[in-house]
């Protein structure tokens, strides 16, 4: 695999304007498959969740999953789409061993939902992403190609197929072309997929786990010269399996295409594969000899004609959408746009909300999740939500601080203990002996000792240089190994030195 020539991003942006397009596939979390009654659980032994229908055995027939149709309409409504009054499934014909019927039941020119939008926030600006269509189809089986260097079918020694995934309902969400994102294009792409994922979660239609493939994203990128008005040839990058990869893939394609165009080359319209490890894309099959899918209306299924009253019922029953919820929480918590955006980017909003619900003050909840815990997650290379600590535990730590039992320094040690699996916050406090020294006698003795040991500082304070008290407080903290209540220590010091704070 040769490393492609790249043009630095800034230079590429000076010379070219990117146009994006995103196609996202979301596996619906229905109990049964799209056209049969097989279960959809992830991770079952291969080919155990199959039947004559999803194996495409001769004579078998599909029956559409009503729940999947409902979920798709709800997604369409949440994306501000129009809902078709009448539409059909269509067959997409092509041969591939992971497709049991050698056609995929999909939708073609009559999608269930069309013409909507999704607003995303990037860099403090709202960007409106147009939604071309939302349609429903069935997933294929999963091929594993064994042998060969590429992990793809060509060159493999043999391939094995797991049909458990065949027939799982899949919703395809296609954006309209997105011009004008300019140098924010990578961030816009990422923000769109992030927002979409949150929307799916809020709707409860999918677990949207990119690593398990229940949310998959294809990224289309083309460049046009600055001042031009004709869009360039686009590439379609597949295998983009994380939010970070979405951003990287867009950036890489911009840099790669810009380098080619700058040398007078031409972009090949093709499918490309993104490689997580190297961050580059490589050529897949060329789309220039476009495959003819010979779409035609699926004769085994009846048209879908959602009653208008039903669509309105679904619309009325939509949950609070993530952007609306964020605005509400921001107001409730009284945080700045910037802090809210930071929490959003860090995927911390749900955690903070749950921590607040468990009794913590919003500012405290945010402080822990975005501070100490974010740092720990970053160190461990895991998502915030995957840290082994619950919002209730964070709320308890916060409560202990608020009541004066812990100070921030001790609280950090408690969090460390919880993350290390030492038990609940109270257990960690108990086992590590982490409690603020608030016994007045003990504290007074420490204060006396520190004053005696720091006569110079004590004199300065007596003479009115209140700021010098900081050194004395530091001394008390040090002598108590961090367990003293710093505020109370300061009060006692000032009192004993005859100054009022």
């Amino acid at each position, binding site marked *: 695999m040769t490393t492609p020539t790249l043009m630095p991003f800034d230079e590429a942006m000076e010379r070219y304007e990117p146009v994006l397009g995103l196609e996202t596939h979301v596996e619906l979390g229905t109990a049964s498959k799209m056209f049969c009654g097989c279960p959809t659980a992830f991770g079952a032994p291969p080919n155990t969740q199959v039947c004559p229908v999803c*194996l495409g*055995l*001769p004579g078998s*027939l599909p029956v559409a999953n009503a729940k999947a149709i409902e979920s798709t309409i709800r997604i369409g409504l949440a994306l501000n789409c129009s809902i078709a009054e009448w539409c059909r499934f269509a067959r997409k014909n092509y041969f591939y061993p992971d497709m049991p019927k050698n056609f995929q039941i999909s939708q073609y020119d009559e999608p269930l939902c069309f013409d909507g939008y999704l607003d995303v926030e990037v860099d403090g600006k709202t960007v409106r992403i147009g939604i071309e269509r939302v349609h429903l189809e069935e997933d294929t089986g999963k091929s594993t190609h064994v042998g060969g260097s590429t992990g793809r079918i060509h060159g493999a020694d043999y*391939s094995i197929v797991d049909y458990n995934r065949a027939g799982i309902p899949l919703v395809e969400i296609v954006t309209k072309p997105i011009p004008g994102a300019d140098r924010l294009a990578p961030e816009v792409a990422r923000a769109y997929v992030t927002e979409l994922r949150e929307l799916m979660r809020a709707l409860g239609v999918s677990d949207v786990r990119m690593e398990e493939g229940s949310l998959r994203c294809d990224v289309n990128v083309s460049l046009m010269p600055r001042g031009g008005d004709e869009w360039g040839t686009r590439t379609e990058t597949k295998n983009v399996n994380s939010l970070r990869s979405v951003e990287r893939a867009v950036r890489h394609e911009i840099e790669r295409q810009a380098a080619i165009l700058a040398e007078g080359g031409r972009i090949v319209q093709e499918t490309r594969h993104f490689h997580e490890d190297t961050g580059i894309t490589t050529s897949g099959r060329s789309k220039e000899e476009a495959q003819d899918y010979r*779409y*035609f209306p699926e004769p085994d299924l009846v048209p879908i004609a959602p009653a208008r009253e039903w669509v309105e019922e679904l619309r009325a029953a939509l949950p609070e959408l993530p952007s609306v919820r964020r605005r509400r929480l921001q107001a409730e918590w009284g945080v700045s746009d910037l802090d809210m955006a930071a929490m959003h980017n860090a995927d911390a909003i749900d955690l903070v909300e749950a921590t607040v619900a468990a009794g913590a003050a919003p500012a405290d909840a945010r402080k822990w999740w975005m501070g100490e815990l974010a740092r720990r997650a970053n160190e461990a290379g895991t998502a915030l939500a995957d840290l082994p600590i619950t919002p209730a535990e964070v709320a308890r730590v916060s409560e202990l601080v608020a009541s004066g039992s812990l100070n921030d320094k001790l609280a950090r040690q408690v969090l460390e203990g919880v993350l290390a699996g030492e038990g609940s916050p109270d257990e960690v406090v108990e086992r590590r002996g982490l409690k603020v020294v608030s016994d007045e006698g003990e504290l007074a003795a420490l204060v006396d000792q520190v004053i005696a040991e720091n006569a110079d500082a004590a004199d300065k304070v007596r003479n009115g240089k209140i700021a010098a008290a900081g050194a004395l407080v530091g001394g008390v903290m040090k002598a108590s190994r961090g367990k003293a209540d710093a505020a109370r220590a300061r009060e006692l010091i000032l009192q004993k030195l005859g100054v009022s704070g």
Partner: protein
Amino acid sequence: MSDLTRKTAAELGRLIASGEVSAVEVTRAHLDRIAEIEPKIDAFLHVAEESAIEQARAVDERRAAGEELGPLAGVPIAHKDIFTTVDMPTTAASKILQGWRPPYDATVTRRLREAGLVIVGKTNLDEFAMGSSTENSAYKPSRNPWDLSRVPGGSSGGSSAAVAAYATPLATGTDTGGSIRQPAAVTGIVGMKPTYGGSSRYGLIAFASSLDTPGPFARNVLDAALLHEAFSGHDPMDSTSIDAPVPPVVEAARQADVAGLRVGVIKEFGGEGYQPGVLRRFQEAVELLESLGAKTVEVSCPSFAYALPAYYLIAPSECSSNLARFDAMRYGLRVGDNGVRSAEEVMALTRAAGFGPEVKRRIMLGTYALSSGYYDAYYGSAQKVRTLIARDFEAAFHQVDVLVSPTSPTTAFKLGERTDDPMAMYLADLCTIPSNLAGNAAISVPCGLAEEDDLPVGLQILAPVLGDDRCYRVAAAVEKALEDRWGGPLLKEAPSL
């Protein structure tokens, strides 16, 4: 010939239910008859002697246990080898499915079993039901019991031959463009294409999904109605199945009365290309209906002229997609897998070796008709014609209660006579195709022998969607009047057996 094989299905059902004969006796008699005549007619791809006796014994045991039996319990039936059966191979008469044992029963199969019918075997057909003579079977052609040098019609020709040869009183078929009615007509028996969606396609190996319709064969109208009732009705496994009660077909077959009924004669079906003897028998049938009190009137259905070309775009288009699954990956034939060739190469070699010439012709026609740039001109236009044909039917059924026509333009043709001329073969379905395109009900009932060749002629009676009972009512009236005239059924003895 044993007496039991001469009886109607209704009679056999009564005798078994009353205990006068056992289901095992009835089944043995038919198995003996099959053994005797099968070498001549080649109706079966698989005869299941042991399982047939077992099924019959189960019926006898149920009766012995005091259970009340349905009207067809214990009656032998021949099952077209395009319906899946867990206990018998299912091949659709194609090499590509040789030896395949389905892991599930078709809905029709299941309902036959639930009705206590004894499935004695699977019958021959044109490969994947594509043809009008069974000569496209990958295994063997079946022969017409009236004249062994002639075809029994197709695609359900094994079923029509079996029933006409008294091998079984009943058989199943599927009708995509006439595949039940035309074989019934040319073998002198009754064959019904129910309303599309009236009988389940689940487990019927698809040829053209929007046209395929399971239906019954019998030697008389009442038996056909009893079988129709036994396996029809809504099936949640088939999305195109109609969620409505089965029309009262048995009652209509018993009613057998046409007084006051308005009968339309389709103007477009007749004249050039039609055998004179077929037209004469048809004309007499129309006169007979008048004599029985029906009012006949000529009705024009101008779009029917385009039915055949529209059919030969829609059916191959759907077939090109339906047959894509036969790729050697999961079941059936696999050719050329030497551990070196790619999956793609093995698919291509398997399909080249496993499909016969007519199947390949239709896959290619359909692939072409659906390809981008041609879709609108071919598949799209054909769908418009389909709408026009449905409108012609609608307009006609405003005027009349049923329509009539000859079932097929000619009587049974000779084996090999049309195999080199696909168009001539396709013309056999000229009169039957419109009902498949529109989805309405139609039946073929014998109306005499053509004087040129002494071979049977079928009268086709067409009714609106879900008007299946009208087909039976008129067919039964015609049957009754003709049997009175003939002094018994047209088919007393299969002449060449």
